[in-house]
Structures are given as C-alpha cells and as structure tokens.
C-alpha cells in the first residue's frame, strides 16, 4: 500500500502548482499550473480509492470532464484577451485594478 507516499507526492505537486501560479505572469503558463493542481488532487483521489472503494476513481472521472471543459473555455478566453490586448502577460491586463 502506497497511500502515504502518494499523498506526499500529491502535496509536492499541488504546492508546485500554487508556486507556479504565484511566480508566472504568462496567462497560458498559469493555466497549465492550474491543470497541474487538478492532477495533484486526482492523485489523492486515486490513492484513497485504493482502500476506500471505487467512488474516488469515479470522482476523478468527473474532475477530468470538468477540466476538459474548463481548458476549452479558458483557452478561448485567453484567445479573446489576446485579440483585444495583443498580449497574454497578466501585468498588462489590469482593467480591474483600482
């Protein structure tokens, strides 16, 4: 049983994803870091499903469906922003800045 190590690896991946979101300014890379965090959580679900039953794996299935939908819509938004501003650098997208 590799439950403990799996949860540790998942924690590392999630923390790296958060660090990436805080570290980068390129909208696409930030989006990839969000996908990384989703995958870290999927690893937790699968590791716990091994001993707690199949519900965890089914949840991973739904997370993947939502992630696919989210990627499609999010990338379309990034495309629209690029058409509007000619950049995907979040420093230049500050319309809501007070």
């Amino acid at each position: 049983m590799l439950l403990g190590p799996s949860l540790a690896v998942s924690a590392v991946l999630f923390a790296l994803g958060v660090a990436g979101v805080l570290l980068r300014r390129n909208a696409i890379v930030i989006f990839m870091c969000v996908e990384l965090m989703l995958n870290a959580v999927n690893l937790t679900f699968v590791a716990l499903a091994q001993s707690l039953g199949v519900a965890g794996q089914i949840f991973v299935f739904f997370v993947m469906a939502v992630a696919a939908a989210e990627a499609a819509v999010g990338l379309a938004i990034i495309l629209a922003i690029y058409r509007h501003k000619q950049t995907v650098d979040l420093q230049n997208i500050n319309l809501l800045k007070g």
Partner: protein
Amino acid sequence: MSLTQLVFWTFSALAVVGAAMCITRRSPVASALWLVQTLFSLAALFVVLDAQFIAVLQVLVYAGAIMVLFLFVIMLLNLGRAGPSDLKGPAGLAVATLLGGLLFFQLLRGATPSAAGTRGGNVMAQLQEEQGIVGAVARPLFSQYLIPFEITSVLLLAAIVGAVVLAKRKL
C-alpha cells in the same frame, strides 16, 4: 524495495521534476512539454495505484487532448519563442516559495494516513478481480452515479458552445 515501490518512486521523481521544470522554463512550449511528462508519469502512478482505466483516460484526455489544445493556442498566439522572462522578480519568487512551502508542509501534516485510510485493505484490487478493470468503474458510473454522468454531457455541450462563442472573431 519491491518492484512496485521502485516503479512508484521513479515515476514520482519524474512527475515532480516535470512539474518543477514546467513552472520555471521561460518558453511556454517547453513548459507545456514538461507538463506532458508530469501527466504521463501521473498516469503511470495511477496504474501502480490500481486505477488502470483512469490511467488510460489520463493519457487520452490530459496528455492527448488538453495539452494539444494548449500547444495549439501557443502556436496561434505565436508565443513559441522564449521572450523576456515572465517570471516575477525576487519579491514574487520569495512570496511563491514561502506560500508554496507553507502549503506543502500543511498538506503533508494532514496527509499522514490515519487508520481509516488503510482499514479496508486493497479494496480496488478485490473489486477488479470480481468485476474486471473497466467493470469496477463502469458499473457504479452507470447505476449509482448515472445522473451526474448525464449532467456531464450538458456541461460539455455548454463548454463547446462557450468556447466557439468566445473564440470566434465575429458572430
């Protein structure tokens, strides 16, 4: 160290290295390709953790579809060349390291498996022996979780319409 553990730690290391490279490479294409490595390694970890069906889905959906979508958008926006670094300055790096590290230690503290986590033994392996690898996931998906499954189709339809509306130049 058993073979399972060896495979597990090898692919864990590959996944973590891929993630670290993904968040530090300057070129978005390099970032995306390192992320693909992480996603493939995670698929291998899923196999080790008795989730073969989910591992196949991971390769098909994440490494296959979502990352291709990412690379296509990078290509469309012509961001392939590494421009001036988009990493934040030393202050950003300090904040990211601090918050990431803090979160990591908090998660690790909560991640020590309790008795409840390991009580049942390996339930998944038993289920797969009785019902088959796909059957163990498919049976509850089409009975107990049928309504969420059907709602997913509505979600995907909404995503298709939303993506087309957002990405089209003129409706």
